[in-house]
């Protein structure tokens, strides 16, 4: 099988000759002209996803005041940040909540503001109230500071998300007889609705199921700017799903840890998000370019919503109690049709991940590459693939 190289593709990007298409466009090309033709013609396929991604946050360095302070506790707009690192460094996590938040005491709690909203305010350039206390040392004598900052006042603001871009996700339903408030949204009783949360045929990791191209150092669209894959994400357990007869139902389980300079990102692609009764988080926009190095990679990148499946999982009883198994699989084509059948009942579906925004990201990334502003990076090391057989552990206790 003939192969293309990263160097060849980047040379074509440099000379303005690279053929770059979005995953949706690539599917159309394969449908019309066949895979062999599509592989020869196309250099890069762009993907996108925009959805809440809880394992997100930012490292911030505030700079030292005079006199200096060793920040022992830090609050940004009243939301605590983690300061168990050097003196004026902190990590603001997307799901952190103000200490006086009523949480779920009046269930379902609203969680109107949290770490994700702080990150949105920062990236939007809005003023943020910083409060810090220290215990005073000979080198860092100051004990308190309260001031207003913007992202421009910070030395560094580095978005570092330990788990983003889930390859695939459950289709959540509720078999119980009460409404439940979950990270998969509001699920009505007795199979009242079904929520799913990937961009299907546009989703980055669904298009490279065996991690043939995505690895450490892969340059990506992150939060409206440029970022990189830093590592595989936490809980990265990639696998290929199969049904009882052994038919392949697309991949699931892979995740990415990503990093990038928050200062060049945009609030359109990093949005503070609240889930009723669940908590606060951050919606993150991610786009990964897939170099069409060979026909096998082309075939995976051409997977359609009809080829990719999500497991249907009951969040009323099975999921919270970690009961294994599911209620069957359903394709993204079925999910996107608006109705699926679960246990013989027709159930209306709704996404939590924005398909129009995913399409927009794939389009922006395509434009960056076409203009020669964004080059592909060859991974330093590919991420673990289904062949590595990683699986999750159960916490005993």
């Amino acid at each position, binding site marked *: 099988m003939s192969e293309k190289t990263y160097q060849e593709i980047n040379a074509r990007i440099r000379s303005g000759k690279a053929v770059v298409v979005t995953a949706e466009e690539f599917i159309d090309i394969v449908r019309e002209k066949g895979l062999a033709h599509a592989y020869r013609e196309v250099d890069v396929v762009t993907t996108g996803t*925009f*959805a*809440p991604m809880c394992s997100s946050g930012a490292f911030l360095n505030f700079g030292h005041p005079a006199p200096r302070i060793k920040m022992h506790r830090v609050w940004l707009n009243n939301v605590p940040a983690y300061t168990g690192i050097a003196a004026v460094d902190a990590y603001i996590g997307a799901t952190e909540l103000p200490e006086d938040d009523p949480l779920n005491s009046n269930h*379902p709690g*609203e969680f*109107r503001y949290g770490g994700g909203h702080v990150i949105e305010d920062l990236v939007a350039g809005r003023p943020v109230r910083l409060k810090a206390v220290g215990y005073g040392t000979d080198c860092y004598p100051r004990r308190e500071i309260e001031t207003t900052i913007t992202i421009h006042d910070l030395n560094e603001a580095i978005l570092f998300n330990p788990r983003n871009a889930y390859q695939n996700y459950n289709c959540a339903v509720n078999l119980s007889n009460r409404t439940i408030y979950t990270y998969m*949204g*509001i699920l*009505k009783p007795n199979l*009242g*609705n*079904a*929520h799913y949360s990937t961009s299907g045929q546009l989703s980055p990791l669904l298009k490279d199921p065996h991690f043939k191209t995505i690895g450490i150092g892969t340059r990506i669209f992150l939060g409206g700017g440029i970022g990189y894959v830093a590592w595989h994400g936490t809980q990265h357990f990639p696998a290929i799903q199969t049904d009882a007869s052994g038919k392949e139902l697309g991949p699931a389980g892979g995740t990415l840890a990503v990093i990038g300079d928050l200062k060049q990102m945009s609030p359109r692609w990093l*949005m*503070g*998000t*609240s*889930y*009723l009764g669940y908590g606060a988080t951050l*919606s993150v926009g991610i786009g990964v370019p897939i170099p069409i190095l060979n026909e096998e990679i082309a075939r995976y990148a051409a997977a359609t919503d009809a080829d990719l499946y999500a497991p249907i999982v009951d969040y009323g009883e099975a999921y919270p109690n970690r009961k294994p198994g599911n209620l069957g699989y359903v394709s993204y084509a079925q999910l*996107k*049709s*608006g109705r699926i059948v679960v246990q013989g009942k027709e159930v*209306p*579906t*709704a*996404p*939590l*991940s*924005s*398909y*129009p*925004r995913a399409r927009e990201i794939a389009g922006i990334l395509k434009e960056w590459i076409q203009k020669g502003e964004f080059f592909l990076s060859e991974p330093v090391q590919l991420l673990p693939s289904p062949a590595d057989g990683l699986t999750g552990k159960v916490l005993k206790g």
Partner: protein
Amino acid sequence: MSPRKIVLRFGPEISDKPIIYRLVKDYDLVMNIVKANVNPQKEGIMVLELTGDNYEQGLKYLREQGVTVQALTHEVVRNEQRCTHCGACTAICPTGALYLDRPGMEVHFDGDSCVICQLCVKACPVRAMEVKL
């Protein structure tokens, strides 16, 4: 007296009783139904303009029947800048006022079908649905 708009909400146990008929016949009220919707769980929402001398007695009757009655003083609007077209509101909205346009998957908001139940206001993860007084 100019007609006042009110929102009535009724649960499944009363949605098949002739409450509206009795309201008109027994209390002699003039009524204009602005919007009405009964969802598959048989919960009903109705927006009415109501006038007549027995207005207060009429409302008292409705409340006695287990209907929740509220004055309609506000409307729900979408902050177009903030809406991400995620779709999280579409299976929650009881009237289909928020709906997905397939296959493009953009979310549309049809204010005319909105019964101001405000379920979307808290269900929207980015708080794009807002109550306007």
